[in-house]
């Protein structure tokens, strides 16, 4: 490897998985802020319907309507908030950034199997981002049919006017292409590039999670790609795949077909988002409890089981579409089945903590937060999975609270855990622990206030995706709670700037990190910062599993790198 790479090669069109990972991280953080800002605007409207947005929420953006968020704008806001958070914030941060950064280092590889494909994947995502952002400048604004973009809302005829939806579909197709490129790379890299001795059951659980996520991506993104192509053709070439009824001249299609295709992908998608977090949590719990992950193999196998089950439960999103009761019950049964493997590894987490010597370093705090929020998210999922309960709860704020606990809160805390944990290897410096602690407590408390109360609202019948809740007599008594949630959300937003500040400031001013600040066993901690392109001077030979913490055979220290034979260590 030549030391004198041009700036372009090194920072822009880099082939190094570590640099590409950082590029994804910055892209994801940008969109996380952008999507979060939109969430606050949604919250403003729900608490103070049709009152001018204050200056500190950038009210001047809505000058045209006297500072008020009008109904069209409101629809655009929740649509783009959901789309951006899922596909442009969480996906790039967890899969793009940590998939890239962590997989090759932890399995002892020099790089991804296909570095050029890796680079192309990032730049395709970048292009997708430009298309998505461009839609904000269209005269009729962005897409507004929800992140699910159900027809007929998302169609030209009978749908929402303007080209925003076309841009949305195009941007998502591009993002999907990028994801598929990444998926091929990650799946093959894990299969083929593991260092000698790194068997599947010696892989760190983070790698397990990221790998299974990529397998799901490889299987299900192609399915939604087909749906998006058909949607695009409906919009551009006048086909009528998803248009039915009066508007459809000559035959007509079936909007339910779209819903099926969407959720065949969409349900695995939520596992795509959470699996990396499960893996990272399982691993960090072991690191910071200084003992092996309880039931390591069982956890890995449970995650595999969930991957399989997750592909046959999509119907639970469609109970209210008039499906036959038998089909509904089957989907309910299969969905409830998932709680078995989920509970097993959840108890494995708790048993990893049991009698461990817990080190409450900041990554550990975020990790423990995941246990809490995922427990709430997971348990409330059972209500949604039950047909009878869901018919009432469907399309209420209860669902919104539930999926924010699983998808937003768990994944967000998982992301914060991952960033804080790998920061020293990525940037060579430590983050400030005090700032992280303040951020942690502020986020943990306000986040629970926001999302738990959303479930309370929903339980009382508050619908989601409604413009002005105060128009409904039965919601009027809940408006106080709506205001409270909005204030909690604003506090939540404000605390994120502490993390952002810490993240940026520590990059330049943080104390220089040691090689292995957390005393971890995995291979990325055996190389010095800055890790060169190519990672390892010599490909390591792997002897031990990833979490041989406090092994009595190792004398003098409670950890042993995977590449050191236990007999000779210590």
């Amino acid at each position: 490897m030549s030391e004198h790479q041009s700036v372009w090669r090194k920072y822009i069109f880099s082939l190094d998985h570590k640099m590409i990972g950082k590029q994804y991280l910055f892209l994801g953080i940008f969109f996380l802020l952008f999507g979060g800002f939109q969430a606050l605007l949604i919250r403003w409207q729900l608490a103070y319907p049709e009152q001018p947005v204050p200056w500190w929420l950038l009210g001047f953006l809505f000058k045209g309507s006297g500072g008020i968020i009008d109904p069209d704008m409101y629809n655009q806001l929740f649509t783009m908030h959901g789309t951006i958070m899922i596909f442009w914030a969480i996906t790039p941060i967890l899969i793009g950034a940590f998939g890239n950064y962590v997989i090759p280092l932890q399995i002892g590889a020099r790089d991804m199997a296909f570095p050029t494909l890796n680079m192309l994947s990032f730049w395709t995502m970048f292009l997708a981002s430009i298309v998505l952002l461009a839609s904000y400048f269209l005269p009729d604004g962005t897409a507004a049919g929800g992140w699910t973009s159900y027809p007929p809302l998302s169609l030209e005829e009978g749908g929402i006017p303007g080209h925003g939806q076309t841009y949305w579909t195009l941007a998502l197709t591009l993002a999907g292409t990028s994801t598929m490129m990444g998926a091929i790379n990650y799946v093959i890299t894990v299969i083929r590039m593991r260092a000698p001795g790194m068997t599947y059951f010696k892989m760190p659980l983070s790698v397990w999670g990221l790998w299974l996520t990529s397998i799901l991506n490889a299987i299900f993104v192609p399915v939604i790609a087909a749906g998006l192509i058909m949607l695009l053709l409906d919009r551009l070439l006048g086909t009528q795949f998803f248009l039915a009824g009066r508007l459809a001249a000559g035959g007509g299609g079936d909007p339910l077909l779209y819903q099926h295709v969407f959720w065949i992908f969409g349900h695995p998608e939520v596992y795509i988002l959470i699996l990396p977090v499960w893996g990272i949590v399982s691993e960090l719990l072991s690191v910071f409890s200084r003992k092996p992950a309880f039931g390591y193999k069982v956890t890995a196998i449970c995650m595999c089981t969930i991957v399989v089950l997750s592909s046959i439960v999509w119907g639970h999103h469609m109970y209210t579409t008039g499906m036959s009761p038998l089909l509904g019950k089957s989907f309910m049964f299969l969905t409830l089945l998932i709680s078995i493997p989920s509970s097993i590894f959840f108890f494995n987490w708790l048993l990893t903590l049991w009698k461990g010597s817990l080190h409450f370093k900041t990554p550990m705090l975020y990790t423990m937060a995941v246990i809490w929020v995922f427990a709430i998210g997971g348990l409330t999922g059972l209500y949604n999975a039950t047909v009878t309960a869901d018919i009432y709860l469907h399309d209420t704020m209860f669902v919104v609270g539930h999926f924010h606990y699983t998808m937003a809160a768990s994944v967000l805390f998982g992301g914060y855990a991952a960033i804080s944990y790998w920061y020293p290897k990525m940037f060579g410096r430590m983050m400030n622990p005090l700032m992280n602690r303040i951020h942690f407590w502020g986020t943990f408390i306000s986040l629970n206030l926001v999302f738990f109360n959303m479930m309370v609202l929903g339980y009382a019948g508050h619908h989601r995706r409604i413009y002005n809740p105060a128009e409904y007599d039965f919601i009027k008594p809940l408006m106080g709670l709506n205001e409270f949630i909005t204030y909690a959300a604003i506090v939540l937003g404000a605390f994120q700037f502490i993390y952002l500040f810490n993240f940026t400031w520590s990059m330049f001013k943080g104390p220089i990190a040691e090689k292995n600040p957390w005393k971890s066993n995995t291979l990325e901690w055996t190389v010095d910062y800055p890790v060169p392109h190519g990672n390892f001077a010599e490909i390591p030979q792997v002897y031990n599993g990833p979490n041989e913490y406090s092994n009595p055979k190792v004398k003098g220290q409670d950890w042993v790198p995977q590449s050191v034979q236990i007999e000779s260590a210590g």
Partner: protein
Amino acid sequence: MNQTLAAGKSFGTATTGKLAMWLFLVMDALTFITILIGGIALRNAAPSWPQADVILNVPLTAFNTFLLICTSFTMVMALNGVQRNDQKSLVKYLGLTILGGVVFLGIQVYEYYHFIAGNESLGAALSASGFSGDKFLPSTGMYGAVFYTTTSFHGLHVLSGVIYLFVIFLQAKNGIYGSDNFDRVEIAGLFWHFVDLIWILVFTIIYLL
């Protein structure tokens, strides 16, 4: 970057590139299957569906199908050539494969052109199937939607395959492949056979059933 060989010998001796191509083909197949099953579901739900040979030119497309199957054969011959280090036969059969692909695309474009320009006999066929106008377009009922989506998505694959093989062809002409180095030819062949296989499905579903 040369990686010393990994711990896992999963999936035997296949090269990493070949493994990736297999995975890609599985993914691509899933997109196709979604489109095909979607089409079949919509067709079953439709009150009526035209007989295949009323609007479409089945004999012409049958010839096209035959042609594509031939190119699978020439692709096998090309691989066989390079494995025997027979450069001439590699280049010749790659060339024939590309030629077959180009003719296939030409016929498809001709067919599309004929439909989109429209004429009286087409108009008669359309009205016999319950459609108005004398042009057969993607907006001509669900029938047009399914026909154009499926065949054009496949056509794009043929186009990509032709470009892909052309790159391999140029490299082969420069003599970079031989009996000790033919992995990329084989991988390109996998893609081409896949496109061929999918066409047989498309042809059966759209033109025969």
